[in-house]
């Protein structure tokens, strides 16, 4: 008697029904990748600009790296200086006679100006031997500038040193005047500015500038070693 063969769980035909679609899918991936490689490559490059493992912080909080110091030396090595990055508080600025006592930030966008005064990122920090351009709002932290006179002392305290500047002049310029500051100056100078007139409602077209020269504080050395 001829015994019927036990049917296998998956016949050859059933295996084909599983394997062929998988093989076809793989072939599609290879074929389409090769065909659209330039487009995929460009899209991947563009896409990489919008994706990051680092989470974006949308909050308006800021980091404070300022720690008061008693450093009285004439110089400080660059390796000992924690250079601030944008929106970090790294010091304080005071004009004691004129009721100016505020946090000092690096950068002059909304976070610094909301919480204190900020150094324009295209200028320099104290100790660099160049121009330090500081902005602040006239109705908040730089309101005291309206009373500043020649000879007033401005103190900037940072974690790496304490600096003093003497006011040499005040001037009023239009907001987009190029004559108001010189970022290429080769000696350390401080320029503070704010909207003018003070206490006026709205966005004014003029700016009030206070110019000061450095009188003490450590020079940062070893910058280009």
């Amino acid at each position, binding site marked *: 008697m001829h015994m019927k063969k036990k049917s296998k769980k998956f016949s050859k035909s059933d295996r084909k029904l599983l394997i062929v679609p998988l093989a076809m899918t793989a072939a599609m991936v290879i074929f389409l990748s090769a065909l659209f490689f330039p487009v995929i490559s460009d899209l991947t490059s563009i896409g990489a600009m919008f994706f990051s493992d680092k989470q974006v912080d949308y909050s308006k909080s800021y980091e404070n790296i300022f720690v008061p110091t008693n450093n009285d030396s004439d110089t400080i090595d660059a390796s000992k200086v924690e250079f601030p990055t944008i929106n970090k508080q790294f010091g304080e600025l005071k004009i004691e006679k004129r009721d100016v006592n505020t946090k000092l930030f690096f950068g002059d966008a909304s976070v610094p100006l*909301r919480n204190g005064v900020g150094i324009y990122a295209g200028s320099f920090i104290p100790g660099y031997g160049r121009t330090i351009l500081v902005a602040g709002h006239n109705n908040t932290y730089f309101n005291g500038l309206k009373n500043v006179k020649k000879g007033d002392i401005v103190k900037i305290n940072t974690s790496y040193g304490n600096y003093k500047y003497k006011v040499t002049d005040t001037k009023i310029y239009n907001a987009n005047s190029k004559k108001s500051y010189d970022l290429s100056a080769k000696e350390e100078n401080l320029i503070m500015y704010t909207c003018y007139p003070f206490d006026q409602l709205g966005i004014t077209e003029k700016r009030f500038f206070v110019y000061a020269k450095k009188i003490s504080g450590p020079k940062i050395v070893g910058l280009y070693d």
Partner: protein
Amino acid sequence: MNITKNPKFKPVMYTILSFIMGICILGCALLATARFTVLNPDFYIDRLTKTDYYADLGDEITESLVDIGNASGIDESFFNNLVDDVTLRKDVENYITAFFSGESLKINTSEFQKTIRTALDNYISRKSIDPSTVSESSINNFVKEATNIYVSNVQLKYFSQIQKSVLGYIPKVNILIFVTALIAVAIALFIFFTNEWKHIAIRHIYYSTASAGLFLLIIPAIVFLSGMISKLTVLTRSLNDMYTAMLKAVFIVILVIAVLLIVISAALWIIHSSMRKKASS
């Protein structure tokens, strides 16, 4: 020997046709997804309604206005409820509709400017502000800057640069959807009617739908398992909400189409198996 009479020729030909049909089904599915999502204004409007986009956008505009308020001697409290949610939503929806209909993307800010000027007048009288400190040009500068902030936030970033290209693509996508669907149907009919054994024809059609379904399944699987969408980093929270919601929706649509194709493939498998049993008996 006539190659077409070679018994190995027909299976090879049908397999190649299946492959081409699979590519067409895949193309049609992806193009249709694009047409009914990222190339469709209703998709944007619907997605934006389902996220916190308008709330976040309102907060962002208010924050930026507070910053210029600080530069203008105006209290933060002035800006509470200044940005009206209803007007904001209307302006964004009009912007999206104008984008897809090829109209100018200029935003009508007359209502916003009117609101801000009225609020300023009330603020000045409420605070008994000295008229000598109120200069018409400074107020105008403030209103102009505030309006610029409002407009730049309502306008979706990069949309004005891509409007012409996107509108050019839409008719081409419509044609391609039709063409790929037509080719897929034509190949299916050819396979079916030129095959003596109908269960073999069904099998070849099954190969196309199954491979297209598997391919489509890979795309959202990679995206969702890698957590790619959560790594999106866009300039503002509101835009991040918007693009995240839209990307998720697009890949879910692809996933649904993939599942549909796999279900169709399963049905074809069953039909093929039952027809094969009948044929062999």
